[in-house]
């Protein structure tokens, strides 16, 4: 596989390009409406806001590409932030141990999701719906219904602060660096043997098993990564805006939407992690666009729904068309003995 720029460009062009086009169009409109948004500071503010969803989308990508769903991430983000506030309670020195504990917790939730889905054969939509309920209830039970405690300044640095006094842009948000590192990590992970096996498992788990893959483990690892990244998202979102009772609510659907907008196919086996990240950016950009256009708050869900359906339908139809042209322009094979679907 080529790692060159041209490699990536051709990947963007050859993968389903809908999301990249959509993203570009949205940004173009936003810039046109408000040139101020193109200023580095505004863009960095946007990145801080978008970063948690990007992490969630990466995690969700792993799960979806393996053929499953993770509905528990919204609850998990909420639970993580609330637990962090409860345990840290303003005590700076508790920051690091609590963050480690959070990651451990996220990993455990992911493991449970994965093992219940693969070993107990519970459909992942039900498994993760169950964990969503459990986390939601357990956290509120633990805190009596509303978050207590508060986050430390150090905890909030990742989501709120950055490297200051950078020429041209002023502040380089930690969130941006984290997203970049995780994003690059995800790209490499998907090129690693594990990543290749994951996508093969999502495509055809029987073939993968017969090739020696431990399907249960590969999928469980995907859920675990999702739990891990949801923890990261929790740290960023808690850092960005502090603790509120609603934090995380509904983010699972936004994350799934983002991934699907990125052309990743529900059911597994297809999609590029970079496109999933672009999907998350697109969703956030869409919210920004609505704001810039002063679309009334109440109308926004409708517009969001329409755009999602349109984009996914376009991609589905486009994919069918591509499949046809690829076959038709395919140089006449020497052996044409078997049906192509």
């Amino acid at each position, binding site marked *: 596989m080529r790692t060159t720029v041209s490699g990536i460009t051709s990947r963007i062009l050859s993968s389903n390009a809908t999301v990249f086009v959509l993203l570009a169009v949205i940004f173009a409109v936003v810039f046109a409406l*408000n040139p*101020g*948004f193109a200023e580095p*500071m*505004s863009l960095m*503010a946007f990145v801080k*806001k978008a970063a*948690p969803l990007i992490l969630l989308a990466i995690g969700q990508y792993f799960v979806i590409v393996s053929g499953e769903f993770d509905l528990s991430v919204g609850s998990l983000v909420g639970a993580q932030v609330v637990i962090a506030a409860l345990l840290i309670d303003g005590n700076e020195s508790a920051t690091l141990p609590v963050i480690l504990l959070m990651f451990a917790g996220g990993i455990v939730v992911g493991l449970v999701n994965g093992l219940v889905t693969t070993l107990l054969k519970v459909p992942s939509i039900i498994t993760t719906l169950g964990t969503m309920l459990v986390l939601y209830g357990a956290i509120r039970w633990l*805190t*009596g*219904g*509303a*978050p*207590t*405690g*508060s986050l430390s300044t150090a905890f909030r640095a990742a989501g*709120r602060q950055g490297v200051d006094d950078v020429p041209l842009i002023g502040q380089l948000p930690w969130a941006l660096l984290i997203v970049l590192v995780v994003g690059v990590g995800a790209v490499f992970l998907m090129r690693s043997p594990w990543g290749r096996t994951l996508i093969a498992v999502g495509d055809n788990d029987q073939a993968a098993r017969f090739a020696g893959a431990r399907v249960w483990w590969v999928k469980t690892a995907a859920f675990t990564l999702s739990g891990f990244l949801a923890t990261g998202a929790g740290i960023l*979102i808690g850092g*960005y*805006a*502090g*603790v*509120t*009772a*609603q*934090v995380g*609510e509904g983010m699972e659907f936004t994350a799934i939407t983002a991934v699907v907008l990125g052309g990743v196919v529900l059911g597994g086996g297809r999609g590029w992690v970079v496109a999933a990240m672009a999907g998350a950016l697109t969703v956030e950009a869409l*919210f*920004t666009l609505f*704001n*810039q256009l*002063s679309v009334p*708050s*109440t109308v926004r869900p409708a517009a969001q729904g329409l755009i999602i359906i349109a984009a996914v339908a376009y991609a589905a139809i486009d994919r069918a068309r591509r499949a046809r042209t690829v076959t038709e322009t395919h140089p006449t094979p020497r052996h044409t003995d078997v049906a192509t679907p």
Partner: protein
Amino acid sequence: DDQADTGDDQTSAEGDWFVQEDFDRQLAQRDVTPEGSADEPWLQAIEPEWVDTAAFAKEGGDATVCFSNASVSNPWRVTGWITMQQQVEVLQESGDIGEFRVSDAADDDNQQISDIQAFVDAGDCDTIIISPSTTATLTPAVQAACDSGVPVIVFDRGVNTDCAVTFIHPIGGYAYGADGAEFLVDNLEPGSTVLALRILPGVDVLENRWAAAEQIFNDSELDVLGFEFTEGDGATIKDIVTQYLQRGDVDGIWMDAGDGAVAALEAFEDAGKPYPVMVGEDELSFLRKWKETGITAIAPVYSNFQWRTPILAAVKILNGEEVPSEWVLPQDPITDADLDEYLERNADMPSLHYAKFGGEDLPGFPDAWQDR
């Protein structure tokens, strides 16, 4: 109609949620001195009309009090719910209350209707306290509870029937919204810009707050940039404010509830802009931030101590003592003048605690509110 908080009159010129008469009355009630001791604001009443409850008198104490709660899904309700439980403990100790039976509808109106029905069907509730989830939708169920002959107490959000023995609430949403809006009008130059942050549409207590504020802004020379729904989510609030700041200056912020006020202020910090004139709520996170930054601010109050009143009212009713048919509690905003006092009184409380929770004299204080 003496039900203050109901939004059933949809014909007014100002929009669905504005009722001039209620607006006028609530604004006036702010200046009325309530009856009763100022040390126990939860027992005070504004312009009460006393009703006789002798018919409900029950011998021997040990009453079964049933409480149908809409939910404990936000910090305001969590704080109040603790206060209520502490009050119950006191009265259980004294033998006035026996069993305290609770169902929580988790914000599901239909569930709450079932919960109320279950209390009625069980037949052994001596009184039913209801904190309705939604005014209009709970009306039939509350009516049915009244019809069963058990004394019914409604508090916080109202219902469209006055069948309850008493309806307990602070002055109301118009007064709350007006407190903040008037403060902005008074503290900002004409032509200043104001952004309104609202939680979600369609909840009457919240709609009334905005309806009053809008009324006042319309009569002022402030420029309202717009209103946005945030679901009370900090990240959404911060993002929205940040975006408004990218487009221009925001001089004042009005909120229909204080959840997330701090996130709004942080948006100004992170954008390097001067703080706005701020309307928050008596949530400690906001009060502390206010103190720390020295901003010009006000904290309207939707008296959280009202959660004690229904329990006390229940005991009164079962003792045959008279209660106000509409029990309007005082509702005074926290201003610069008493900020320090409330910060001090709540020094050890968590940040999502409400300053005017009114439980300082209860035996569980302060632990019950601290480690919930």
